[in-house]
């Protein structure tokens, strides 16, 4: 911020040195300062206008549609204002089940991601930067691959006669094919695979920032490796872990494709219920209300996250 401000001042004053104002003249100086300020303001506004096309697109695609849905969520089928869609959410059992499924899927996915992602990020953070860059491809490659493709791959891997069942039966883990897909198990496996990079990336960058000397010092002072890890490393890496977990949790809340395909109609999340309401009943009010609740839950979580620690810094690298 500061840098940018002084930059404008430099630019405008350099334009002015060729101007006619006489140096040393007091009133001239005051005029000069006023003019400078005006110019700076004009420049700032003309710069900001560069953001206008993008802002308009976001307005058109996000603000108008989402506000419209917000409005629709308070309208009954007769077009009269009503709170019935929200009341139904409290009264109907099916809604309660959807909310609890959504919460469970998000929570379990996050926990699985932490359990798998922490050792992986730790491993990567301990490597020399060169090697870490190469092994990082294992995280980035799935991240870049279409989630539809990955969901499809899991559908194939987990099916009754799929590779996983074959393999498990060969090594004697179980005797007859186990149902691994079109249920909660399949959904969680697929979701964890898709969400893992969102946890590993922020966690890895947090771990990279930990001073290695601290571990050195702990060791010098007589701490065992395990003690040094639990008392020094772990607490320092926790902010990255919380940031990553929150991203994963929030993304899970609104997830659609994977539960719809791998859940096989048995795992009803908020997003799948929204589309079901639209497809079966064409009830825009009820679908919108559910969407609004989803949005509010997301925003609340983000708000809490921003309050608890510098969330944007964790997301977008150091400020």
């Amino acid at each position, binding site marked *: 911020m500061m840098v940018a401000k002084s930059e404008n001042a430099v630019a405008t004053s350099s334009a002015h040195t060729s101007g006619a104002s006489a140096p040393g003249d007091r009133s001239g100086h005051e005029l000069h300062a006023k003019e400078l300020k005006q110019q700076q303001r004009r420049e700032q506004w003309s710069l900001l*206008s*560069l953001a206008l096309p993008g802002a308009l697109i*976001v307005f*058109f695609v996000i603000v108008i549609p989402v506000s419209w849905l917000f409005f629709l969520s308070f309208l009954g089928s007769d077009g009269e204002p009503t709170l019935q869609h929200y009341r139904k959410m409290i009264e109907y059992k099916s809604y309660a089940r959807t909310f609890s499924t959504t919460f469970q899927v998000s929570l379990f996915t996050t926990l699985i991601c932490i359990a798998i992602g922490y050792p992986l990020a730790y491993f990567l953070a301990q490597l020399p930067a060169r090697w870490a860059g190469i092994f990082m491809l294992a995280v980035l490659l799935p991240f*870049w691959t279409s989630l539809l493709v990955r969901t499809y791959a899991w559908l194939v891997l987990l099916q009754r006669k799929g590779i996983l069942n074959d393999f498990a039966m060969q090594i004697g883990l179980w005797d007859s094919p186990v149902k691994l897909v079109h249920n909660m198990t399949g959904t969680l496996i697929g979701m964890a695979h898709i969400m893992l990079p969102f946890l590993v990336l922020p966690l890895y960058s947090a771990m990279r920032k930990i001073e290695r000397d601290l571990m050195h010092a702990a060791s010098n002072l007589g701490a065992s*490796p395990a003690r040094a890890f639990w008392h020094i490393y772990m607490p320092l890496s926790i902010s990255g872990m919380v940031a990553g977990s929150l991203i994963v949790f929030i993304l899970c809340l609104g997830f659609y494709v994977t539960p*719809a395909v791998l859940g096989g109609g048995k795992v009803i999340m908020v997003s799948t219920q929204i589309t079901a309401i639209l497809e079966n009943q064409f009830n825009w009010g009820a679908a919108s209300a559910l969407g609004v609740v989803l949005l509010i839950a997301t925003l609340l979580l983000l708000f809490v996250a921003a309050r608890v620690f510098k969330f944007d810094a964790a997301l977008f690298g150091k400020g």
Partner: protein
Amino acid sequence: MSWWQSPASDTQVTHGGRLWLYILAIIIMLLLVIPTFIVIPMSFSDSQYLEFPPSTWSMRWYHEYFGSNKWMRATWTSLRIGVLTMLVATPVGTMAAYALYVSGHRAARLIFMYMLTPMIVPVILIAIGVFYFYGRVKLNNSIAGLVLAHTALAIPLVMIIITAALRSYDLNQERVARSLGATRLKAFFVITLPQIKFSVITAALLSFLTSFDEVIVSIFVSGGKTATLTKHMFSALRDYIDPTIAAISTIMVLISTVLLLLVQLAGSRDK
């Protein structure tokens, strides 16, 4: 002293004592990568059912894919929308990122947050909202409508990448150019842009991929002749497992792998 006994950490744990971590990490990385690549061998199977390893090999599903009018049209649509999204989102996002970073206006931070909303609002909500709104302004099933929606989804990505690049770039250089008489526009194109160009390329490739891989908005907003590849794939997945999808998936995996490697190369050259 062998590698086995040499210290691996600052707390003098040896590589041997860390073996469990290495093995665990390799298993996890395999679990990450295998499901991404498993579709490749499967796509060359001759069987109706998906078996692994395939008992007989053939190009059957590729013939099916390249011979199908439906799949070819969808692929063409997705490619067109992806390229158009890239062409709109990259300059628009770059302009916005530059403006907000350089202006130093009090509102800049707020506007930046606003521009990130497409990333924060759950996509399902965007999808049905856009579907409803487009129904009113007659943009459903149109290429323009999809490009617009995908552009909004890509803008936050472009802005994050470009802002990061501007942060690591010394803006004083642009000031020097301007004090020597260049206009802001000229200073940007001659001095700044060449130095952040690999980030711009990364942003462009990512916005293409954002559009090309996008599923949910496409399911709602595209249809008929403008149905995208992902829309057809999704309905095929929900109803039955069509091995043609393995062939298409293979092509999609190859595209993203190539793009990722390009970006990695570009990224290492920007520094």
